């Protein structure tokens, strides 16, 4: 039964991709941002599916039991805050800009040849690491539920999502995300209810959990306090620069829709994470007395086996695969657009037709997808820590130049470039030094801000004024709307 449900789910994904292909095959606007026509309902579910990933869903229960509630909370609470930060700091300016990708913003704001190369390259590197961690998750789920060995599961799940991204572009990713987001949220609520019922006496189960897993309670035991701050800050800042999130902002019908859907999605995501912490963790501790917390990624599925029947297990398997594949598909879309749109079209062949750009992007999807599948054959442990490092790299490099570029008119191309390179290099150096988990961003992010500001002040010669004014011109219409909103309060 589980096999049938999961195979049926895969077929639905591919079918959606094929339907989307008919609309997107000749238009980059359709292929990269779904024609900028997505409404609030659509984008809300798509945002959930984009954020909820292998780490935040499948690894959530095991990570909490192994690393403690405070660290697990620091890892998941940063993202909802990050979406709010993004909705205030970047959603409006980027949607008004009306382009496709993160590099498009830097190009429009700074007109820097260096950034035209560095930004997409960093996106491809970080997104690939993120994709590898998600692929590991999809292979574990498929292997656990369907009895496939790790490599078979990895190739099948990998090929399915590469296929639907390459043929249907962002529209296919979005339609699949809606389906996947609703499926995921429903199954998490269903699992919460089933686990709560199976536990029986909840207060007794809660107390038994804390006794059996003393590491759950404390703040200072599992990690340094800097790890908690770093994990939270990483996600609170990274969301504003994550390429697959920003592409979704560009795809919104208007600014208000983008902002409402960002916040709605995170409210629903927060509810899911509370269900994990308050219900699923004690359920796993009490219903699985011999749980192996050295393999935290498998614990969630073992719990589902314990409380669900065959149909429930099949649906949950599809839901977890949905969480993983939707995030992976979004990241793959970010990678392929960085290659097809930002590197190929803008740098190598500006005269390329829309059809040619789409074909190159589709080819890039296959190349990146296959490479990531190969890298995922021997992946490291702890999904959630691995992909947190990948997003921390993006936050360290892009957050300060983007936020200052939007909100501080004196930011120069040299300043933003220095902050970008400095942030990325310092993050890499701190990561190599073996600092406490997730704390690298606490060095790299302030340094990136400092470099951007200092170098901007030193290089402020008026040379960048034209690029800045052209960028600010894209924001004029919005300013009138904001003033109007203010006057009504």
């Amino acid at each position, binding site marked *: 039964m589980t096999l049938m449900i999961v195979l049926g789910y895969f077929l639905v994904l591919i079918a959606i991709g094929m339907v989307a292909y008919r609309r997107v095959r000749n238009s980059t606007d359709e292929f990269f941002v779904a024609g900028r026509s997505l409404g609030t309902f659509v984008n809300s579910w798509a945002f959930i599916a984009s954020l909820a990933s292998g780490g935040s869903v499948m690894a959530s229960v095991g990570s909490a039991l192994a690393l403690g509630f405070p660290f697990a*909370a620091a890892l998941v609470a940063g993202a909802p805050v990050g979406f709010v930060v993004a909705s205030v700091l970047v959603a409006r300016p980027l949607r008004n800009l009306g382009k496709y990708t993160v590099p498009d913003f830097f190009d429009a704001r700074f007109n820097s040849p260096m950034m035209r190369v560095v930004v997409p390259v960093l996106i491809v590197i970080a997104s690939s690491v993120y994709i590898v961690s998600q692929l590991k998750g999809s292979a574990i789920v498929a292997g656990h539920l369907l009895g496939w060995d790790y490599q078979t599961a990895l190739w099948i799940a990998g090929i399915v999502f590469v296929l639907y991204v390459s043929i249907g572009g962002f529209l296919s990713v979005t339609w699949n995300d809606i389906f996947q987001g609703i499926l995921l949220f429903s199954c998490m609520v269903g699992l919460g209810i089933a686990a709560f019922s199976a536990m029986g006496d909840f207060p007794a189960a809660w107390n038994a959990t804390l006794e059996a897993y003393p590491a759950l309670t404390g*703040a200072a035991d599992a990690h340094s306090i800097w790890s908690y701050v770093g994990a*939270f800050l990483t996600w609170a800042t990274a969301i504003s620069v994550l390429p697959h999130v920003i592409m979704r902002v560009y795809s919104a019908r208007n600014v208000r829709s983008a*902002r409402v859907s960002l*916040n709605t999605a*995170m409210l629903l995501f927060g509810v899911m994470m509370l269900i994990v912490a308050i219900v699923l963790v004690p359920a796993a501790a009490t219903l699985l007395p011999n749980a192996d917390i050295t393999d935290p990624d498998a614990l969630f599925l073992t719990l589902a086996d314990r409380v669900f029947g065959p149909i429930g297990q099949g649906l949950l398997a599809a839901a977890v695969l949905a969480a993983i594949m939707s995030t992976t598909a979004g990241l793959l879309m970010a990678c392929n657009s960085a290659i097809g749109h930002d590197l190929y079209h803008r740098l190598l062949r500006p005269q390329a037709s829309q059809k040619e750009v789409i074909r190159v992007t589709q080819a890039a999807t296959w190349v990146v997808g296959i490479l990531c599948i190969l890298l995922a054959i021997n992946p490291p442990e702890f999904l959630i820590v691995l992909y947190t490092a990948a997003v921390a790299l993006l936050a360290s490099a892009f957050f300060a130049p983007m936020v200052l570029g939007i909100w501080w008119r004196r930011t120069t191309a040299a300043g933003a470039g220095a902050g970008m390179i400095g942030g990325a290099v310092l993050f890499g150096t701190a990561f190599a030094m073996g600092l406490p988990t997730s704390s690298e961003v606490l060095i790299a992010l302030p340094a990136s801000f400092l470099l951007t500001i200092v170098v901007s002040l030193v290089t402020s010669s008026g040379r960048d004024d034209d690029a800045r004014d052209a960028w600010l011109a894209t924001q004029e219409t*919005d300013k009138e709307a904001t003033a109007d*909103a203010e006057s009504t309060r």
Partner: protein
Amino acid sequence: MSRSTPTATRGEVGLLAGIAVLAVVTFTPLFNDVEIAGVALIAWLLWFTMIAAPVGGLILALRSKED
């Protein structure tokens, strides 16, 4: 002609300031030893922030008139 930068509304500034204050309180070492229902206060505050921040953001977004 030189153009001015975008501006945030008072509500947006207040929301970001509120999140920052909550984060500072959450990570202050003074509260490391405080527990509620056997779980460190830091975890409860983070869970609260995880819900309160999007609620605040949603209210602001729904009140805005931009389109």
